[in-house]
């Protein structure tokens, strides 16, 4: 009986075109859009190509010239220097060809056209140079014998700063849109969950009424339907992740098997959530589908599907919410796999998902079973 129910549930699901559209094609389309929009973005943001700058030498300044030389010249150096005259430099700046104009005379000065990070970097460079000048001149005035030491201290190549990269994984911030896309697809499982409700509740459809008249215990029918949903949703999640990793070539870390596992677990939670949400109250199917979809999109919004650093904002304002928002938990699972070498956090998140699935399913079954309806 169970397998009979299961078989037909899956058959029906696979043949429900609009459902499959939303669960398979929509994530695929959205993933493609994300790829187009965010594909190049990270490399642009982390682009540290030389900053174009025009240098106007009003007066020979040997020290400054050598300082310039040390930071320009090759492809990975700090500055891309164009030596020119004042008017040309102004023209270049106006056209946005250079970020700033440095004029070296008695005093080194900087001219920029707007506020920005690159401009600030230029300012730092000029400031550093002027500071060194000041330190040396101070040293000269206090103890001329120490000038040489001061100069060597200033020009030391040894950096006092140790750079540590926070993680070993893919630190592309925009990949998190894909994490959230997976979370969204997982939560679209709510539509499948809604299907269970509609087909098993006498007040939602004639089919539900007919099923209620059958001698199959409701809990049996519901669990068959839930299993069917889980299987369908697993299929959708596998398609989604495979598409992201192998067609769009999104780097989801090197523990791909666990990424699949996390996505499938998320999908199952989505189904259970849909089942639970749609078993509340007796309103029409259309209203229920509107409400579930609204809830899903809101959760995804708070998890950062639309605005990337939303999760950061929530972490600041209401950290507990990220722990129970299913969308955030699902995307965190995949994020943990990317960022942490140990499994502590991943396991916590997976356990959260398992708990949510159990609670949602149990509550859903509890509310749907053994019911007589006040009106049909």
């Amino acid at each position, binding site marked *: *009986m169970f397998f*009979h*129910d299961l078989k*037909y549930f899956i*058959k*029906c*699901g696979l*043949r*429900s075109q609009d459902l499959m559209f939303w669960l398979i094609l929509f994530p695929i389309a959205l993933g493609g859009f994300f790829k187009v929009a965010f594909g190049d973005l990270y490399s642009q943001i982390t682009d540290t190509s030389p900053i174009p700058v025009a240098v106007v030498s009003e007066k020979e300044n040997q020290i400054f010239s050598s300082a310039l030389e040390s930071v320009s010249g090759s492809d990975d150096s700090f500055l891309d220097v164009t030596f020119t005259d004042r008017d040309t430099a102004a023209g270049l700046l106006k056209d946005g060809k250079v970020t700033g104009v440095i004029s070296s005379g008695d005093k080194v000065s900087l001219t920029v056209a707007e506020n920005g990070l690159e401009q600030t970097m230029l300012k730092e460079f000029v400031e550093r140079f002027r500071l060194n000048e000041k330190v040396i001149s101070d040293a000269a005035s206090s103890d001329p014998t120490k000038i040489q030491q001061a100069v060597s201290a200033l020009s030391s190549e040894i950096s006092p700063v140790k750079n540590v990269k926070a993680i070993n994984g893919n630190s592309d911030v925009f990949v998190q849109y894909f994490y959230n896309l997976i979370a969204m697809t997982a939560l679209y499982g709510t539509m499948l969950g809604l299907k269970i409700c509609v087909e098993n509740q*006498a007040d939602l*459809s*004639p*089919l539900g*009424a*007919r*099923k*209620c*008249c*059958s*001698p*199959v*215990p*409701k809990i049996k029918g519901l669990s068959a339907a839930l299993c069917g949903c889980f299987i369908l949703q697993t299929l959708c999640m596998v398609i989604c992740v495979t598409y992201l990793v192998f067609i769009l070539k999104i780097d989801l870390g090197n523990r791909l098997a666990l990424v699949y596992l996390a996505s499938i677990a998320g999908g199952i939670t989505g189904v259970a959530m849909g089942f639970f949400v749609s078993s509340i109250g007796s309103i029409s199917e259309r209203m229920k589908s509107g409400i579930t979809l609204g809830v899903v999109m809101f959760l995804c919004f708070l998890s950062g599907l639309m605005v990337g650093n939303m999760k950061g904002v929530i972490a600041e304002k209401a950290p507990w919410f990220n722990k129970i928002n299913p969308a955030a938990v699902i995307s965190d699972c995949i994020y943990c796999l990317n960022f942490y070498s140990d499994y502590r956090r991943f396991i916590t998140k997976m356990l959260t998902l398992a708990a949510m699935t159990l609670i949602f399913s149990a509550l859903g079954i509890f509310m749907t079973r*053994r*019911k*007589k*309806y*006040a*009106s*049909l």
Partner: protein
Amino acid sequence: MENTIVKISNLVKRYGDLIALDHLDLDIKEGEIFGLLGPNGSGKTTTINCLLSLLSFDKGSIEIFGKEMTPVSYDIKKQIGVIMQNVAVFDQLTVYENIDYFCGLYVSDKQKRKALVDEAVEFAKLGDFLKFYPKKLSGGLLRRLNIACGIAHKPKLIILDEPTVAVDPQSRNKILEGIKQLNSSGATVIYTSHYMEEVEQLCTRIAILDNGKKIAEGTKDELKRMIKNTETIRIEILGLEETHLKEILALPHVYNCNYDGSVLTVSCSGGKHNLIRILGVLQEHDIAFGRVYSELPTLNDVFLEITGKVLRDKGNEE
């Protein structure tokens, strides 16, 4: 005395202030085709839904096969076949798959099920459409599929809630024949409808519902005997005068007399030679007349007289 299959006692169902079922009692015996007749909104479908434990009710009790019916009475449900007013099939499954699915909810043995499904297909004459999806079926075929899904597991009690709404006459006759066939093979049938002729043709016992109350119950003949009218006589006449009408009305057994300018309608209650007496009056006055009809009362007359309402075939309940 036959066994009572369904016993509804003192059933009350309210929707807010509206009383949908008002202290309803029904006894349905084994082997009957029991008709529930009533106008739209009289409570037929509500009765069925309560019977199936889909709807909660405020008072009363329902027993099927001698046991109380609850949502978890699976042993009872196993022996019931339901055909709802609304077609309840999966759009995503073919005709065969639909029947197999619903049959599978009752019968788990595969071999046995296959035989039952094939029989149901044969019964509903759906053999040419096995691979069709419901969306491609015409209204009549869809209704037949709906019935096949409900009866494939050979239930002892079959409940049909207006199964012939919006079905063309050919399909309707096939459905009615099918129901008779099911009954003759041993099933008890509960049949609701607002089509008089269907019920008259099909049912062995009938209950008439109005405003949630049972206002009459019995076999066709018993019901007809309940009313005054035993014979309605209609005569085509031109130029009948008021005085003649009065004379006819004064005849024995005549209790109503009506003339609309071309047809005289006389209602009689009891007596034997009513037609001869009326024609005698006409001859006496030398009035020429055309065709003459004498009709026995129909269920429609019964209904009209009991409820004072005209039963219409339009729209759906609820």
